[in-house]
């Protein structure tokens, strides 16, 4: 199946990365240049500069408010687990480092495979728990759209196929590698148009929220 691998490493990767870059840049540029209603209210006294408020809000929202901590414990911890897991897998697995090096010229040390396997396993379990929670919570289920489920599929598939490829389980290595790369291509194509775009938008949305809230109310 080297032909499939050639296709994955060649046209599929080239096309999907082009779609990814186009989509991300298009969404970010259009968002940044969109007409905005100017906030004409007088900002509260003692308000921080907008940029500082924006950055502070980004970090503040990484943990829930204490009064909600108990109720949101699962989503907070589980969310952290799979986000950190995905970050480690993407950035610290040797073949991935090589992939980024081939694109950017930058390189950094990788972690041993055994660590990546362990993190990958935990990440898969965490993602499955996230889906279970979504399906078992009436409110979450009600507000879930097709986007949520497609996003989940294109996120977990590369992890599963990557684990299979790295451990040579199931099919021949070149076939597993081809399937893994194709699953990443699917993720690249979906990324700008689905909820995965939060990977970029999270900085803007949280920052904007922080800047706006910073102006409102009165100084306590």
């Amino acid at each position: 199946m080297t032909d499939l691998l050639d296709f994955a490493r060649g046209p599929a990767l080239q096309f999907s990365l082009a779609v990814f870059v186009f989509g991300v840049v298009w969404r970010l540029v259009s968002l940044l240049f969109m007409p905005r209603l100017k906030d004409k209210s007088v900002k509260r006294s003692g308000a921080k500069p907008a940029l500082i408020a924006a950055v502070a809000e980004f970090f503040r929202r990484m943990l829930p408010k204490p009064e909600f901590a108990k109720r949101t414990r699962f989503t907070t911890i589980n969310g952290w687990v799979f986000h950190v897991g995905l970050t480690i897998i993407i950035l610290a697995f040797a073949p991935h480092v090589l992939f980024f090096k081939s694109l950017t010229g930058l390189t950094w040390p990788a972690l041993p495979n055994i660590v990546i396997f362990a993190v990958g396993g935990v990440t898969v379990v965490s993602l499955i728990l996230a889906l279970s929670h979504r399906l078992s919570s009436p409110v979450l289920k009600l507000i879930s759209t097709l986007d949520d489920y497609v996003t989940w599929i294109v996120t977990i598939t590369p992890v599963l196929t990557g684990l299979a490829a790295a451990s040579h389980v199931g099919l021949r290595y070149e076939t597993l590698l081809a399937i893994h790369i194709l699953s990443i291509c699917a993720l690249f194509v979906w990324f700008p148009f689905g909820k995965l775009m939060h990977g970029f938008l999270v900085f803007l949305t949280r920052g904007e929220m922080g800047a706006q809230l910073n102006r409102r109310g009165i100084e306590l």
Partner: protein
Amino acid sequence: MAEPKTLGQMLEARGISRRAFLKYTSYLASSMALGSVAAKAMAENLASARRQSVIWLSFQECTGCTESFTRSVSPTLEELIFDFISLDYHHTLQAASGEAAEEARHIAMRENKGKYVVVVDGSIPTKLDGAYSTIAGISNLQMLEETVKDAAAVIAVGTCAAYGGIPAAAPNPTGAVGVDQLVTDKAIINIPGCPPIPEAMTGTISYILSFGKLPELDHLKRPIAYFGDNIHDRCYRRPFYERGLFAKSFDDEGARKGWCLYEVGCKGPITYNACATLKWNGGISFPIQSGHGCLGCSEPNFWDKGGFYKPLPAPIRDIGKVAAGAAVAGAAAGVVSAAVGRAKKKSAMKEGKS
């Protein structure tokens, strides 16, 4: 006319003991992952076999496959086995030349009709009716068609004969192809490699002689006994891969310490061959042991996979320019979207809707 001697009789005449012969067939059987029963059957069948007529056709090639075959440091007995194949036609090895050589081929074809084995090394050019390579006034294409017509089996030796090889590299000016793209009505075995491992050739031929059938083949018609595992799975540097220890260049500390060559483009994980187990030059070494990554020479199109030194996870097409173009197009589309939004807002404000 005396009945042709069997292999066993000829070995005996040469002073090769039955014990030595059994040891050899055990070696052959184990190299093909066959059991002890098969080794015994192999010995018995091989001992009673008559010389197998072989016609070796060399087309668009470098003679590297023949060099590998003849210069192998294999057991003396193995060389004798080769002697017992009646090599009736081979450009490089035969004494005859010109019309006498062609006559030898025709005689072998006539006298062993339906029984002879054709070994091909080199690709076959198909453009201009095969005019890019001719022998004795006929194209390789014609010679192949003519010779395989009454053959029992065809063995494509080397990557050129198996898949087109280097001559088929893009843009493939001669329209080079492998044997199985042209011959569809005969049993074909591919023994690829640039060149192939000698034992893979002799072992496969011995198997056919012993059992009168083809060995088990994979989807690329390669004997599974020699091409069943990828180099990576059998590589002695594999533990370094697992530990994330890689040579970053061919002369760095990692290279000197014998770490994994994955980052410098080793194609071991996608290459199926016996290099890491049988090795070369009598089991002395193989490319990875000598410090160079596997080129993947037993796989189709290995020369057109983006470069020998490009690691497997790297894209094989130019991403930079395409990504830059996509970024510019995305920015333009974003500006247009924003402009449309602004125009709508302006229009709405004019109409007093805002």
